[in-house]
């Protein structure tokens, strides 16, 4: 029987999972950073900034480090903005879990211990609260709580961690059948852009964009009244270089890994490609020729592994499964959409079933902002100018749906994306709500139907550096605005020459921060 990774919010009374997690943390934190099984080296594998760790008190200045803290290697190995994001983090979590299990068993704990997960389920508001056991500084016996760190500042910087359903929306994940997208195409896939090299930094997938990024930022945050451009003012979770130090990091990524398992169970739609909701079979992904993932073993040695070796979580090397990977509310989204576009309710279901994928994915630019947009502490407005020809084609395509015969093997209606490109920033700890065509002077919070999604800056600082793997291009965030555009089409607003975009900050933004969205583009895509 595989060990079961349990939902931290559903642990029964008296359950010892978190007690043993804490015991293992205590032990691993006594080990020196020079030991690859120490808490510190495990965190440094995700990322390390020597001076920042010293400033925060997690590293002594006189310690001789076993690896170059500035180089990408065994440390700073984490894979973001790439189709290796999910398999690398799975291998990383599995190695972490094996080391903890070894410690727990040696301390007399259960040999079926498994890392729990924090399922911030947008449909269950109670689960969005910060897991209780991680919050207090001291335990009942007055000893320090090993699950606690002080650098968790939350959304407003006052230490209150509040997450809204919109921050962790997952429904878009179940609508995206492709695991990866090509580097010359939009970043619309579930798992990230196919990058030739591990650190190619091509682009984030939907899961990495949300809920992964926002949870990092909303737990970490920035200390109230301080400048988020100065790294030591930010919470550990908000930055690659410190995230792994916070015990909640591992439960967060356990959930991201669980969402991957959930995605694989999503029911394929007839119009989806043959490889819909499946892992890539590409040898480059499976075997990572540019440099396999290097992981530590409990005995202090290291080993290499690949995506191919971590696909089956129940295999003896990983030996775990999740308590629950069900996907709630898998509705007939396509049929519902056809209904909104004017197809008779009785026909919409048949038509959705008869639709087939287009012979070739086609992506077309529909509109673009004219200049870079500097985001500020107050809401920032921007405009995307639309191309009349492209908008007309989109409108015609949407209109044509209602005249299709119910058995027509047509391609599904175009999807529309808002692409925020070249997002560069002097801080990682920032998040914005993005609205499309909000009525004038409206209170954004009262218009969820115009909410396109969130822009999180997790990883933006590194992506803004010219010598880094992103070549200084910054982050790209792709928001699916199909439903918003459908509504515009139906209300006759799609003929307008421009759409309005509003960025509403969800975290404190300092006046000195330089947060720029290089371009905002609107694309339509048929597939």
């Amino acid at each position, binding site marked *: 029987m595989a060990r079961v990774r349990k939902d931290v919010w559903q642990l029964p009374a008296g359950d010892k999972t978190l007690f043993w997690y804490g015991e293992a943390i205590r032990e691993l934190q006594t080990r020196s950073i020079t030991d690859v099984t120490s808490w510190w080296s495990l965190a440094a594998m995700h990322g390390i900034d020597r001076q920042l760790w010293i400033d925060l008190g997690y590293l002594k200045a006189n310690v001789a480090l076993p690896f170059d803290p500035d180089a990408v290697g065994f440390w700073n190995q984490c894979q973001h903005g790439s189709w290796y994001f999910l398999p690398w983090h799975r291998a990383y979590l599995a190695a972490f879990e094996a080391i903890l299990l070894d410690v727990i068993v040696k301390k007399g704990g259960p040999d079926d211990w498994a890392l729990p997960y924090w399922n911030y389920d947008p449909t269950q508001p109670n689960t969005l609260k910060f897991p209780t056991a991680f919050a207090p500084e001291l335990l009942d016996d007055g000893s320090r709580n090993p699950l606690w760190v002080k650098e968790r500042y939350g959304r407003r910087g006052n230490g209150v961690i509040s997450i809204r359903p919109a921050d962790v929306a997952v429904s878009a994940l179940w609508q995206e059948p*492709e695991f990866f997208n*090509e*580097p*010359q*195409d*939009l970043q619309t896939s579930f798992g990230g852009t*196919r*990058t*030739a*090299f591990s*650190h*190619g*930094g091509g682009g984030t997938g939907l899961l990495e964009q949300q809920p992964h990024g926002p949870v990092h930022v909303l737990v970490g945050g920035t200390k109230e009244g301080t400048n988020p451009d100065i790294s030591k003012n930010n919470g550990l979770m908000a930055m690659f270089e410190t995230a792994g130090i916070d015990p909640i990091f591992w439960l967060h990524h356990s959930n991201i890994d669980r969402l991957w398992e959930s995605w694989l169970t999503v029911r394929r739609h007839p119009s989806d*490609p043959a*490889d819909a909701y499946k892992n890539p079979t*590409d*040898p*480059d992904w*499976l*075997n990572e*020729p*540019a440099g396999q993932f290097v992981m530590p073993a409990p005995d202090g040695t290291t080993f290499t592994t690949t995506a191919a070796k971590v696909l089956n979580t129940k295999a003896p090397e990983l030996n775990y499964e999740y308590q629950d990977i069900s996907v709630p509310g898998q509705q007939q989204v396509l049929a519902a959409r056809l209904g909104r576009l004017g197809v008779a309710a009785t026909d919409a279901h048949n038509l959705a079933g008869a639709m087939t*994928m*287009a012979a*070739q*994915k086609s*992506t*077309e*630019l529909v*509109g*673009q902002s*004219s200049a*870079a947009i500097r985001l500020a502490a107050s809401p920032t407005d921007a405009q995307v*100018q639309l*191309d009349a*020809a*492209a908008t007309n084609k989109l409108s015609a395509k949407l209109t044509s749906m209602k005249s299709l015969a119910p058995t027509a093997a047509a391609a599904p209606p175009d999807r529309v994306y808002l692409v925020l*490109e*070249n997002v560069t920033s002097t801080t990682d700890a920032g998040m914005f709500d993005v609205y499309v065509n909000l009525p004038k002077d409206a209170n954004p919070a009262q218009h969820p139907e115009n909410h396109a999604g969130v822009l999180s800056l997790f990883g933006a600082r590194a992506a803004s550096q*010219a*010598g*880094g*793997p*992103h*070549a*200084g*291009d910054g982050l790209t965030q792709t928001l699916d605005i199909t439903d918003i555009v459908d509504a515009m089409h139906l209300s006759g607003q799609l003929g307008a020459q421009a759409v309005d975009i509003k960025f509403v900050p969800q975290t404190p933004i300092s006046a000195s921060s330089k947060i720029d969205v*290089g*371009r905002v*583009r609107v694309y339509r895509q048929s*597939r």
Partner: protein
Amino acid sequence: MSPRVPLPALLRQASPTLLLASLSCWVLLAAGSEELPSAALCSPSPNLVTAGAAFSTIYGVGATATVAALLWILMVAAMTAPQLAQPIAQLRLRSLAERRNRSTGLFVAAYLMVWIAVGPILLTAPNAVTVLAGATGLPAFAIAVVIAVLWQAAPLRQSVLNRCHRVPNLSAFGTAADRDCIRFGLTHGLLCAAICAPAMLLPLTAPAFHLALMFALSVALQLERLAPPRPPQWTWRVVPGQAVVPVLFRSIRWSMR
């Protein structure tokens, strides 16, 4: 949906059209060099005009500078066309559908303009190397190797290379869109020239092997272009693309399993 053939990811970044264009240019160059053992273009010539003159004497072509310029463009196209696959794909994704070909045309024209402009400088550089060779008593080719290796190891070259990976910031509409495509082509041409020019001294100072060296160099530079950006610092990686070869090899091996 794009077709998914089991090719190594690295090779899938290439564009078949551009590879074919490049190959055609290589065939033309090879055919030309067979008939013209001391290839006028690649042997040190005082300038383009005399290079063209040498060519036209043998072929009896009246035009001189024009022929030389055309030969030069042929050579540039052969060597650099495959490297334009990524920037052109990026450009097309960011252009309105009806402007895609226009954008690509403007980009390519601007890119070639840069190479036509740097041609005379590059073709007279071997003379400077020869003068240096005379002064130091070292073979000209050895001096070219030292210059190329030093440049290859330099952090400045890496930062120029990193800039090649940046996605273009292009306007979508009107003259601003045209202007940005031209600017992108000029920038890309300058970056390419800065990255490649010192290495091009090698074929220019070894006339006997010029074509083979040029071909090897263009393959190496193409591979190097596929590697991701990295922090600019002095490096021992002095063969262009050397980091990519083992990856490519492993990738091909796995694909064939």
